[in-house]
Structure formats: structure tokens, C-alpha cells
């Protein structure tokens, strides 16, 4: 071979080697289909170390059957191969504990509920007024997970960047694994996601294994409780080098050890409902209620509540854009894409442009509100007509005030929600007194001063009061210190949620048992603070007992069932629920002992005016009659003289034209 040919071959080999090295090194996330058609997710599974999961052969070397044991799959490694996990982690469902994220409009809190101690404390990492931040109560992130993992999708505080092995609670994650974002909770399209299985796994603190169990890929291989294993561990000790494995279902793997995931970007509403169900009235009455009008029209939740890769899902309220934060990570990602498309652009310029683009995209959020969508006609939404409704109502009411939630009655009704009552998981039938008691709709003013419907819950907890500062007791602390009535086994079976209200005597006993020299024991419930004054129980209004409320927007009722569709008297009447409905604070005391307020009172309005205005509507037909009658008279007079004027003009013209 000629030297020239040899060197050419060498070059070719080098080029081929470089190409292969490049392919191997290329991150998979650079690959996109770009199609509106779904990508067939027949993909390999990866464990948390990034190794491909390949179950051992059916028969071992000795010819004996062997189980398909392997490490649980990691969503960060598996889904993250193509979908940037770090970017997704910025999403609204995962970023609650990120202090750089603006809290936005107060939403549904997590409610720490313990029937035994009659505790219900609204919690939120976002610092919404009226809620407690878990760390402020002495609740660690790990404790938060053990309480709420049932409806927590993972990520964020569940999947910290580093695990503090010296922390006796967080250090457990070295054994239990972190709680990665479980993409399939929202994105599986088959309805085969096993929430019960996931819940069972999470009850055992099997965070690392839960996604695999829930996806139905396998079962626990010889263990079922990582929490028990973690109980044996103490800070500073070594953790097991090889965590227990999953016994995979071989049928899930094809010949190339790929697994088929039937996933969708347009998540079915049923997936959302696992965490976002509001059931009212509670009990076996679902047949009495209609679903949201949008869903009946064939839409799904994510048609409006959209998100990009960053999963900053549109919450859909007006003014949301100003509550959004454009993070450096989002700018970096967009700048990276820009530089890929235009290599000539400098890094700084790309970031500036990215910032501008992302700012402009915030405007898009406003088009996904009720009014934004219906005014623009997006998704063929009908244009609101609002015949007979004076426009002043749009300044004073939100769209949801008339269109969302149940029609108001004399009292708000009790509602159960997924987050608060664990809906979506099988449990003894939850009743109207099952804690936490949440009511809806309560009509309050929003931040723009418009009337809007809200859900409302009253905190209930035992606390210590010292120097004017209230320190709530967590259920474990309250159970340990307070002398509280205990259910006997029969009662526990009959009333698993311990709904029997506390009597004054029981509250007094508990407060006496909690008393110490350094602080005063108090009980917060149903809008009041109970305390002992010279040995006597007193209950008084207190800011600490104020309710927490959050806006409700669903289910949306059709136009003909909107408030006001039957006429002005839907609201402007002497018994209008929106103004004169009674909101009774609910909690673990007799309902009659709860604080009672009418809606106008909660909004700080003038009752006399409301009653007079409502009374005035009785005379509205008279007003219309008088004014229309008067208008008719004036019109006839004007027409009469106008016609006479026309007669004079025509007479004059005809006189002029007559021959001399």
C-alpha cells in the first residue's frame, strides 16, 4: 500500500474514531423528534447510578431459574436522558421550598391533620399568609415527606442536591433514597399507574423504590420497608452498600431490555384529579354533581394549565405573570438553544435576548385566564355575552364568583380535597365531620378588591403562648403532653376519624395538663383561642385562629347555571347567600361554639347598605315601568311635533312649487 493511501486510511480511522467518540459523548437530550406525534417511549431503564437496568437471564449459568432482580429505576436518569431533569425541577409542583420563587396567589395548603389530637395546621413552604412553614413548627423536610408523600410528586425538597449524613432525619435518605420527581404520576396515559402501590411503598419510606412499584414494573425483592432499615441506622454509621433490589416483571422488558412507557404530554385530567379533586358534597353523592363544563366539552386540565419544559405550569389567575420569576437557569437554557441555532451570537447577547423572549412569553399567561381565553377565542371558547349584566360587575366580581364552584346556599358547604383528605386512596368513608373541615364557597375580596369564591379552613392546634408568641405543638408533642380523650377500640372502628367534638370540660382538662410555669397553654379551634383564666375556660377571638382561605376556580358551571343567570335577585335579594350567607367556623368543637360571620362581615361591608340595596330591587319593576312609560310619552310628543314639523316643511315646499 502506498504511504499516501496508508495515511488516508489512518485519517479515515481517526475520523471514524472521533465520530464514535462524539456519538458516545453526546448527551441524549440533544435529540428531539420535533413532531406533534408522540415519540414511542420504548426505552432502557437506568438506575440512580446511571447504569442500564438489565434483568439477569431467566436461567442462570447452572440452568436454574433466577429472579429478575435489579436496582429500582431512576426517573432522573431514565426520563432525564432526554428531558432536562434540572429544568423540570423548577416547576411549580416541585419548587415550593425554593426561596427564590415568588409565592404567587395563595393556593391550597398542605394540612397537617391528626384526628387523635384534633390538630389541623395549614402548612406551606411558600409562606402564604395564614400558613406555617414546616421548619417553623420543627417539622423537617423528611418529616414533611413522611406526612405528605402520598400526594407529593417528588423533586424539590424530596430530592435534595446533597444529603446531610449527620442529620438524623435527612440522613435516612442515604437508605430510603431520595424522592425523585415521578414523571408518570402526571404523564402516564394508560390509567395503570398504581397509586395504592406507591402509597404503600411510601408508607414504608421506600422513596427510591416507589416509582418502580407504582409503574408496575416489579415488586419488592425480599423487603418492603426501607424505613425500618433506616431506623437501624444512626448518624455517622455506614449505610448498606447495596440497597435492596426490585423483582422486575420480565414481561415488561423486550429483547433489547427496553421498556414501553405509554406517556403523553397532554396529561389526562384523571391524572390531575389524583391530587386536585374537590368533592362536594362529601360521601356517595357524586352522581348529583356535574363535572367542569370545560371537561364536558372535551378539554383536559392541561389545555389551560400549560407548561413548557420548565414545568412552570400556568395557574390561570389574573396577574399571574407578575408573580412569575424568570430564573437564571431558564435564561441559561434559552440562551443555550439560541447559541445552538446561531453559533455566531455571543454568550452575553444570547442571555439578553433570552431574557427578552422569556419576558415576552409571560404575556402569554394572561391569555390563559378565563377572560384571556374567552375574549380571544382560544380553543374555540365562546365569547361571553352577559346579556343584561351591567359592566360594573366586571370591576367588582371575578369570573369565578358567578361561574365556579357550587351555587352558594345559606351556609357554605363542606368539601373534601385530595391534598387534605387523601382522596384517591382507599380509606374508610370520609364524612362531613372528617378533619380537616373545609368549606366552600366563601365570598371574599381578592387582592384587586373583587369578590371571589374561596375555600376556607380554620386552624386547630394546641399551643404554648409566651410573651405574646404562639408556638403550636405538633401532634406527637400534643399527644404526649395533653390529657386528651382516647377512643376505645369500638369507637375507633365506628369513627376512625375521631370526629366527636371536644367538650369544654375536655378542653379545660387538656389545657390543665399542658400547663407549665414558663408558658400558657392554649387551644386554637373554630376561629377562637381557648385559654384558662384563673382556672376557668374562656374562648375569645384571636388573629391566630383566623381562617386560611384560597381561591377556588373549579368546577366551572355552564353560563345558564351561573350566579345571576336567573336574574339580579340571585345576589341582590334579602336572603342572598353571597352577601348574607353565614360562615360558621368549623373545628373539633361543637359547631355552635364556632365563630359565626356573615359574608358581608368577612368582607368588611356595610350590612345596612346591602339590605337597602337588595330591598330596592323590589321596586326595580316599578322603576322600569315609570321610566319606560315616561320615555314613551316623551317619544310620542317628540314624534308628534316632529311630524308636524315635517308637515310644515312639505306644505311649504308644495306651496312654492305650485304654478302661479
Amino acid at each position, binding site marked *: 500500500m502506498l504511504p499516501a493511501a496508508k495515511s488516508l486510511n489512518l485519517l479515515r480511522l481517526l475520523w471514524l474514531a472521533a465520530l464514535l467518540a462524539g456519538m458516545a459523548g453526546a448527551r441524549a437530550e440533544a435529540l428531539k423528534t420535533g413532531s406533534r406525534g408522540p415519540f414511542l417511549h420504548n426505552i432502557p431503564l437506568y438506575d440512580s447510578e446511571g447504569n442500564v437496568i438489565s434483568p439477569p437471564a431467566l436461567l442462570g449459568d447452572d440452568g436454574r431459574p433466577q429472579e429478575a432482580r435489579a436496582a429500582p429505576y431512576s426517573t432522573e436518569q431514565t426520563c432525564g436522558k432526554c428531558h432536562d431533569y434540572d429544568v423540570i425541577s423548577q416547576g411549580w409542583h416541585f419548587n415550593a421550598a425554593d426561596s427564590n420563587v415568588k409565592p404567587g396567589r395563595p393556593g391550597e395548603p398542605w394540612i397537617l391533620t391528626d384526628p387523635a389530637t384534633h390538630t389541623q395546621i395549614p402548612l406551606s413552604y411558600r409562606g402564604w399568609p395564614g400558613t406555617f412553614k414546616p421548619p417553623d413548627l420543627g417539622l423537617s423536610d423528611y418529616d414533611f415527606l413522611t406526612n405528605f408523600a402520598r400526594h407529593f410528586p417528588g423533586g424539590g425538597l424530596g430530592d435534595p442536591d446533597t444529603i446531610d449524613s449527620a442529620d438524623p432525619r435527612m440522613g435516612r435518605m442515604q437508605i430510603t433514597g431520595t424522592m425523585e420527581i415521578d414523571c408518570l404520576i402526571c404523564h402516564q396515559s394508560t390509567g395503570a399507574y398504581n397509586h395504592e402501590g406507591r402509597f404503600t411503598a411510601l408508607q414504608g419510606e421506600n422513596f427510591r423504590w416507589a416509582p418502580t412499584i407504582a409503574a408496575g414494573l416489579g415488586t419488592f425483592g425480599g423487603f418492603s420497608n426501607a424505613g425500618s432499615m433506616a431506623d437501624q441506622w444512626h448518624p455517622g454509621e455506614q449505610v448498606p452498600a447495596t440497597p435492596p433490589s426490585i423483582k422486575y416483571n420480565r414481561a415488561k422488558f423486550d429483547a433489547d431490555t427496553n421498556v414501553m412507557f405509554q406517556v403523553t404530554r397532554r396529561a389526562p385530567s384523571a391524572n390531575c384529579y389524583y391530587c386536585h379533586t374537590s368533592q362536594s358534597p362529601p360521601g356517595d353523592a357524586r352522581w348529583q354533581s356535574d363535572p367542569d363544563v370545560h371537561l364536558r366539552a372535551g378539554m383536559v386540565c392541561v389545555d389551560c394549565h400549560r407548561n413548557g419544559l420548565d414545568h412552570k405550569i400556568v395557574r390561570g389567575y389574573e396577574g399571574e405573570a407578575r408573580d412569575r420569576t424568570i430564573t437564571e437557569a431558564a435564561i441559561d437554557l434559552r440562551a443555550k438553544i439560541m447559541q445552538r441555532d446561531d453559533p455566531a451570537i455571543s454568550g452575553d447577547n444570547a442571555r439578553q435576548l433570552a431574557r427578552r423572549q422569556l419576558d415576552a412569553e409571560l404575556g402569554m399567561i394572561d391569555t390563559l385566564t378565563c377572560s384571556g381565553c374567552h375574549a380571544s377565542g382560544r380553543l374555540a371558547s365562546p365569547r*361571553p355575552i352577559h*346579556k343584561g349584566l351591567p359592566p360594573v360587575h*366586571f*370591576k367588582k366580581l371575578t369570573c369565578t364568583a358567578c361561574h365556579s364552584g357550587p351555587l352558594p346556599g345559606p351556609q357554605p358547604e363542606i368539601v373534601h380535597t385530595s391534598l387534605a383528605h387523601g382522596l384517591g386512596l382507599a380509606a374508610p368513608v370520609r364524612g362531613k365531620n372528617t378533619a380537616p373541615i373545609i368549606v366552600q364557597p366563601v365570598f371574599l375580596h381578592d387582592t384587586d378588591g373583587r369578590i371571589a369564591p374561596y375555600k376556607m379552613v380554620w386552624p386547630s392546634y394546641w399551643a404554648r403562648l409566651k410573651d405574646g408568641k404562639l408556638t403550636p405543638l405538633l401532634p406527637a408533642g400534643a399527644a404526649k403532653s395533653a390529657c386528651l380523650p382516647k377512643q376505645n377500640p369500638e369507637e375507633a372502628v365506628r369513627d376512625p376519624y375521631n370526629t366527636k367534638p371536644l367538650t369544654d370540660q375536655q378542653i379545660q382538662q387538656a389545657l390543665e395538663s399542658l400547663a407549665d410555669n414558663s408558658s400558657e397553654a392554649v387551644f386554637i379551634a373554630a376561629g377562637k383561642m381557648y385559654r384558662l383564666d384563673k382556672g376557668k375556660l374562656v374562648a375569645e377571638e384571636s388573629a391566630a385562629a383566623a381562617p386560611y382561605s384560597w381561591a377556588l376556580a373549579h368546577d366551572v358551571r355552564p353560563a345558564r347555571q351561573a350566579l345571576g343567570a336567573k336574574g339580579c335577585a340571585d345576589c341582590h335579594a334579602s336572603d342572598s347567600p353571597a352577601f348574607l350567607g353565614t360562615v360558621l367556623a368549623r373545628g373539633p368543637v361543637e359547631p355552635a361554639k364556632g365563630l359565626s360571620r356573615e359574608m358581608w362581615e368577612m368582607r368588611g361591608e356595610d350590612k345596612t347598605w346591602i339590605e337597602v340595596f337588595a330591598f330596592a330591587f323590589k321596586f326595580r319593576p316599578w322603576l322600569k315601568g315609570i321610566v319606560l312609560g315616561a320615555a314613551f310619552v316623551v*317619544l310620542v310628543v317628540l314624534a308628534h311635533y316632529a311630524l308636524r314639523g315635517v308637515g310644515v316643511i312639505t306644505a311649504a315646499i308644495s306651496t312654492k312649487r305650485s304654478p302661479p
Partner: protein
Amino acid sequence: MNSAAKLSYTAMCLGAAVLAASGIGVFALGRPPMTHWVLMAHMAAAPVFAAALAGVAVTWADLCRKGSKPRLGAAAKVLLWIILVCGLVVMLSGVLPMTPLFGTDGQRALYLTHRWAGIVLAAAVLLHLPALRPHADVTRH
């Protein structure tokens, strides 16, 4: 001019005064929309004004036609017809929004019509009073 005409005219002026004070006053003070007791006063004065305007139309129209006796000044005649036309527009644009005939766009149009016709009406009433003064013979008849 008979007592009915005088009564109608007086009632119309009083009604118009309340309506203008409550309606235009709210905007002049920069506190729209009109609500609460101001709205109530506006709504209470409206039927008084409407009935009085009808009375004025019936009792004054003939006085204001061309060549009528007793003679009114041209300004007073023209202003009265303006009052009647604007009053009609104000009444209809005030009462039609209370019926289920107009949607939001129509309601807004009616609202603006009501506002501007009301301003013109108030101005016309205000000018009509001095326009009557030189012709005291009107009140003698």
C-alpha cells in the same frame, strides 16, 4: 302656563339636579363607578325626573313650537327640545341595560350614551333656566 307645567318643570329640575350631582359628581370627584348611597340617590331621583320630563313634554311642547304664544325665546325653545331629546336618550339608555336585551358591548355603549347624553341634558337644563328669565310673560300666561 298652568300649574301642571310649573310643577313638572320644577320636579324635572330638582330630579336633574340630583341626577347630575350623583352621576356627574362621582366622575368629577374621580370616584367611579357610582355605588352605594350615591347610586341609590341616583336611582331614586330617576323615576321622579322621568315622570316630570314626561309632564314637561306634554305641558311645554306646544309653548316651544314655532310661532307659539306666549312667545318664548328661541334659545329657551331649542333648549327645551334638546332637554326632551336628551332626556329620552338618557331614560332609554338608563333603563335598557336593566333588561336582558344587551350584552357587554351593548351595555358599554348604552353606558357611554347615558353618560354623555346626561352631561348634555344637565347642561341644557342649566342653560334653560336663565333662558326663561327675559320672557317673564311666559309665567303670567
